């Protein structure tokens, strides 16, 4: 079994080692390049500034959420409630901003809320050994139902201009893109070089072995969920501020898109391997696929089927690769 870190596979050239440890990331990057060239050739408007902008900035929140999701899956768990959480975060942030609270409170409180909610979920998962799918399935319905009951579906509008963090531009590029890039790089460094990051891989790879090696799997799992809450919180803020209106509902199937980004980016569904760079690339790939369907005149209603096929193909390839290396 190949381990998360590139330290394995001795006796190979540095280049071979790079390819073997970032294989999936390279494949996804290749797909993105091929898509841009191919669709751009068929319909040049695909490469227009506006469209590129909407692909990157409009989907940055998915990439940010996928960073946290990748950590969760690497730790051997899953979170199907992240879409609902992002919806709740967006609504809390918008309500605070419209309610006249200082902007920094409208930014900070929702993120802390997301971390607190996920600390609870993480504690349930870690200490009661209830499978994370069940806990987060329950959480999904609590958050979703709670959100709709609380807001009755009313939209939030007229938010102060200062609050719209995702729309601020630096050097002409929307800040959402900076968030995506900087957080991905920081998370990648964190996962690779920090003790906690490596503990996440160890616990996801083999929880009992990690315990024998002196790690505390329970505390690691709670920590991962809190971190995931942080990224979900940021994602919620970006989602809340990218448009002029917050719809106060849960974006449909957001959790699925986020999980798919992680899985296609090379995070193994069995835990223990993968990188957050891959999931960000995969999030961009999806956004590009969704946008290219429009430019190629294919009905957008097929998007989810394409998504499902891609998860299935990636998972099957992952299983085949594992069987080969075992």
């Amino acid at each position, binding site marked *: 079994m190949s381990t998360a870190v590139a330290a394995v596979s001795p006796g190979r050239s540095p280049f071979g080692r790079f390819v073997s440890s970032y294989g999936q990331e390279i494949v996804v990057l290749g797909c993105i390049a091929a898509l841009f060239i191919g669709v751009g050739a068929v319909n040049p408007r695909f490469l227009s500034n506006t469209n590129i902008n909407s692909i990157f900035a409009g989907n940055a929140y998915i990439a940010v959420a996928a960073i946290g999701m990748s950590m969760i899956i690497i730790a051997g768990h899953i979170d199907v409630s992240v879409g609902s959480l992002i919806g709740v975060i967006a609504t809390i942030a918008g309500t605070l901003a419209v309610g006249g609270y200082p902007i920094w409170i409208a930014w900070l409180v929702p993120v802390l809320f997301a971390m607190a909610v996920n600390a609870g979920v993480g504690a349930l998962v870690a200490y009661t050994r209830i499978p994370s799918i069940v806990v987060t399935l329950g959480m999904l319905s609590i958050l979703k139902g709670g959100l*709709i009951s609380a807001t009755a579906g009313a939209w939030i509008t007229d938010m102060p201009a200062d609050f719209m963090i995702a729309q601020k531009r630096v050097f002409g590029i929307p800040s959402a893109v900076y968030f995506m890039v900087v957080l991905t790089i920081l998370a990648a460094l964190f996962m690779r070089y920090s003790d906690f990051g490596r503990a996440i891989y160890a616990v996801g790879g083999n929880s009992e072995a990690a315990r024998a090696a002196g790690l505390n799997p329970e505390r690691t799992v709670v920590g991962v969920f809190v971190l995931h809450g942080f990224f979900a919180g940021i994602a919620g803020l970006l989602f809340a501020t990218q448009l002029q209106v917050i719809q106060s509902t849960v974006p449909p199937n957001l959790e699925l898109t986020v999980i798919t980004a992680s899985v296609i980016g090379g995070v193994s569904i069995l835990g223990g391997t993968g990188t957050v760079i891959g999931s960000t690339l995969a999030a961009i790939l999806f956004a590009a696929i969704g946008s290219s369907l429009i430019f190629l005149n294919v009905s957008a209603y097929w998007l989810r*089927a394409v998504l499902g096929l891609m998860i299935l193909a990636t998972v099957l390839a992952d299983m085949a690769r594992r069987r080969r290396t075992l």
Partner: protein
Amino acid sequence: MNLPALLRHETVLALLVIIALATLAGLSDRFFTAENLLNQGRLMAEVGLVALGMTFVIVTGGIDLSVGSILGLTAILFGVFWQNVGMPLPVAMVAALASGTLAGVGNGLIITRFKVPPLIATLATLALYRGLAEGISQARSVRGYPEWFFFFGQGEILDVPVQLWVLAIATAICAVILGLTPFGRATYATGANEVAARFSGIRVDATKLWIYAGTGFLAALAAIIFVSRVTTTRSDMGTGLELDVITGVVLGGTSIFGGRGTIIGTALGLILIQALKNGLALSGVKGDGTIVVIGIVLIIAILVSAIVDRSRGG
């Protein structure tokens, strides 16, 4: 398998059901009318049918998140077979049931042949099947079914809703299969210890394949009843169904870790949830508030069952 312990869980559940029903009857005089009870049974049938299959799935230690999508996909295919392909309605029904079964076989093959964990396999097919439903329907709904077709979702036999008969018969069949046949024992053995089951000569993969196929069939059956009840076909039918179904099964005492659970437990779990929903609705809680309660009930039910598991040394 510890029979006295099993009985205890179901006894507790039965008591809870009685208490819930009595409380609701006390709260609202509209609850204990034959009309309301039968109507609740009508609403329970679709979730109930799928929950029967899900009980087998969870007893083997698996899970099937794609049931709602299979329901949506077969509902769409049923409409398309009838309206666009031009099949006579009964043929379209059979073809839809076959498609649902095939979707279940797809799940089963991915899980048994490629050793993909059921959670991930059915998460992928959840997206795939729903995506196919959306792609095929292009968000158009199918309407205009003939009057006689509404019998399945709206009709009555001996004053009891048709789908309640279907549910009762299916429940009886499933209870017998799981409780009294070699197939049922193979299901428990697979969930209790898959490796040991394999070495004992149990055909684990075949058992699982049959179970996922059967769950697909039941989801398709639920789809036809659903279409007949609401008289129209839409691609978003059955969204979130998996949550209701899993909650009912787990509340019924089926261990999420596999190896333990009964059909009677699932039936009691479903009745309890339906009573809860109805009671909340009668006392003025809106549908969204009910989702919150179900989520909380799900987590608490599993929490209790996990604690009981551990105290038993499981």
